[in-house]
């Protein structure tokens, strides 16, 4: 079988290193015209992925941030009844034209965009449990109907849909069946040094090695409430560079610990581990 030339569109960008598996998943999703569902630890670059697909393929990015109060309909269109009611009260506008009170949501915007767009539905798990189910048909058909104006909004160019989830809620099976799924693994040290080099091309070899060594050592501590992730590492390296910390110093201690650990309990736990006095809360359970 010959490699399909339409395939392999996305290969990461100069700002974003994507593993082979991730590139494959993105390309499969684009080729099949199905939404790509991306999961992974916080800070592994789920949201950035959509930005970089749009950037890499030269397409417009439309972002739909999901909140706990977001309804599926908000993404399609909003019918501003209160405004119409208000206009009716003063009678200074022609309220018989309902169209002027219909505002397209982000999904609708992506459908009517004159060329193929990238639509990011960010943190879909924040919304109500039923939310993804309400979007099934719209994402399948890439069209929806507005009863108020008897119009059908149809996508001429199916947008590339990227959906991110932090698995705060289980997504419904029917929804999952329609998606292509990818789980962004935590990068291994090799991939991580590539990622760091993209952001800090001039970093000293020694410094990078020392920083990564300490970072992966900290990742091995399971007692943290929140383990440091890629974005914390990048911030930390920036701090190290700005502070002019020498590689030797990093080997001995961890400067700017607060950049890596964001929770007080974690800092406490880490200091305790270092001095061998770690106990704190969890030791409650070990006593009789």
């Amino acid at each position, binding site marked *: *079988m*010959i*490699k*399909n030339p339409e*395939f392999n569109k996305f290969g990461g960008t100069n700002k974003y290193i994507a593993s*082979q*598996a991730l590139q*494959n*998943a993105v*390309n*499969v*999703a684009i*080729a*099949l015209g*199905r939404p790509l*569902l991306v*999961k992974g630890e916080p800070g592994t670059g789920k949201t950035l992925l959509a930005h970089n697909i749009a950037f890499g393929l030269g397409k417009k990015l439309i972002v739909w941030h999901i909140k706990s109060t977001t309804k599926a309909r908000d993404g399609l269109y909003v019918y501003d*009844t*209160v405004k119409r*009611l*208000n206009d*009716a*009260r003063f009678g200074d506008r022609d309220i018989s034209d309902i169209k002027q009170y219909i505002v397209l949501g982000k999904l609708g915007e992506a459908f009517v965009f004159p060329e193929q767009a990238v639509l990011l539905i960010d943190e879909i798990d924040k919304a109500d449990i039923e939310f993804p189910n309400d979007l099934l048909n719209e994402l399948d058909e890439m069209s929806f109907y507005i009863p108020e104006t008897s119009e059908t909004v149809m996508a001429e160019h199916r947008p590339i849909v990227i959906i991110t989830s932090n*698995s*705060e*809620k*289980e*997504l419904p*099976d029917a929804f*999952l*069946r329609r*998606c*292509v*799924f*990818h*789980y962004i*693994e935590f990068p291994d040290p090799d991939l991580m040094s590539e990622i760091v080099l993209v952001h800090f091309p001039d970093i000293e070899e020694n410094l990078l090695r020392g920083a990564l060594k300490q970072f992966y050592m900290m990742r091995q501590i399971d007692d943290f*409430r929140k383990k440091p992730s890629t974005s914390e590492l990048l911030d930390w390296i920036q701090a190290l560079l700005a502070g002019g910390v020498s590689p030797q110093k990093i080997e001995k201690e961890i400067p700017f610990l607060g950049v890596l650990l964001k929770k007080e309990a974690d800092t406490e736990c880490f200091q305790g581990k270092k001095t061998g006095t770690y106990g704190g*809360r*969890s030791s*409650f*359970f*070990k*006593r*009789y």
Partner: protein
Amino acid sequence: MFVDFFYTLRKYKLPVSITEWMVLMDALSRGYAWSDLTDFYFLARSVLVKSESYFDQYDLAFREFFQSIETPPEIRDEVLEWLRNPLNRLPLTPEELAEMDLMDIDELLRLFEQRLREQSEAHHGGNKWIGTGGTSPFGHSGYHPGGMRVGGESRNRSAVKVAAERRFKNLRSDVTLDVRQIKVALKRLRQLSRIGDKDELDVDETVDKTCKNAGDIELVWTRGRKNNVKVLLFLDVGGSMNPHSAVCSRLFSAAHSATHFRDFQHYYFHNCIYEKLYTDAERDEFVYTNHLLRTLPGDYKVILVGDAQMAYSELTYPHGALYYQDLNETAGIEWLKRICDHFTYAVWLNPEPFNWNHPTISAIKHLFPMYELTLDGLDHAIQKLIVKH
């Protein structure tokens, strides 16, 4: 032949549907995996598997199905690469090198293929067949000076090897629990009801009122929907619970930091609940169990965590408690019954693996629905806390 892979996946309890399988077939017919097993591994995974907690099962199924298919060309490349690399000859002594020269590459390869054909099963040790250990020229971890390593570690990771690594083992939902996973599970414990301040615009009512008002707008506000769930956590600490302290403390910190409960209270006990419940894990400070039963309404959702293993007397005899300070007039089982009667929704989570035939476990299981303290168990337990038991 290929549809068997579908059934292998189903055998490993992966929820793969026919729709997804058809999508995969579609993708394959369009040439998205261009006859490369590694590409196929990722393609099939992204189309068929929709949660990282199933990745391990997928790996196992993939390994089982493709193990026999892939190996020959892989080994050949690997072997040739090995043989062509002059560095691999460096650590050998001159005598060994002389011995090596007796056998040139072509002969070695020919012999290798011949043995590969003759050999019908895995072989380890010995001096002729391909396998591990041993002094034959083929295999790995062996002693033949110029032998080739077959399998073992390699820089080129094939799909089957990726699958064999089982890197997603600890994401399986039936095995581990971390704070976040517990939080996710606890999130489902919610019942929305209209409580609190009237701070939401009720559009329907507003339109209605405004119409009745002859078009003069009158806004109507209503109470927002908030979570009305109150949780009571009883933790068994000390003694036989010590091996489980890590998972219990994770459950505790998840429940403690869950912000969506209307109220959360936790108490400690040892082995069984008697007159007193302790507010600290050292069990110095206490409240009376009766006081809780009197003051807390029955709609609290109760989660008991413990291994439920104790001496039978501790559960069923008055004065059976292990500690002098507990001096219970009433048997433990009676107290558990009272809790069970007072609170409509109560579950027992047991950190012990599901193999419960201890007599006290059976007795307690009679009162409370009991679940394993794993993600699956927790999910079931929470389901039980939402609908009536």
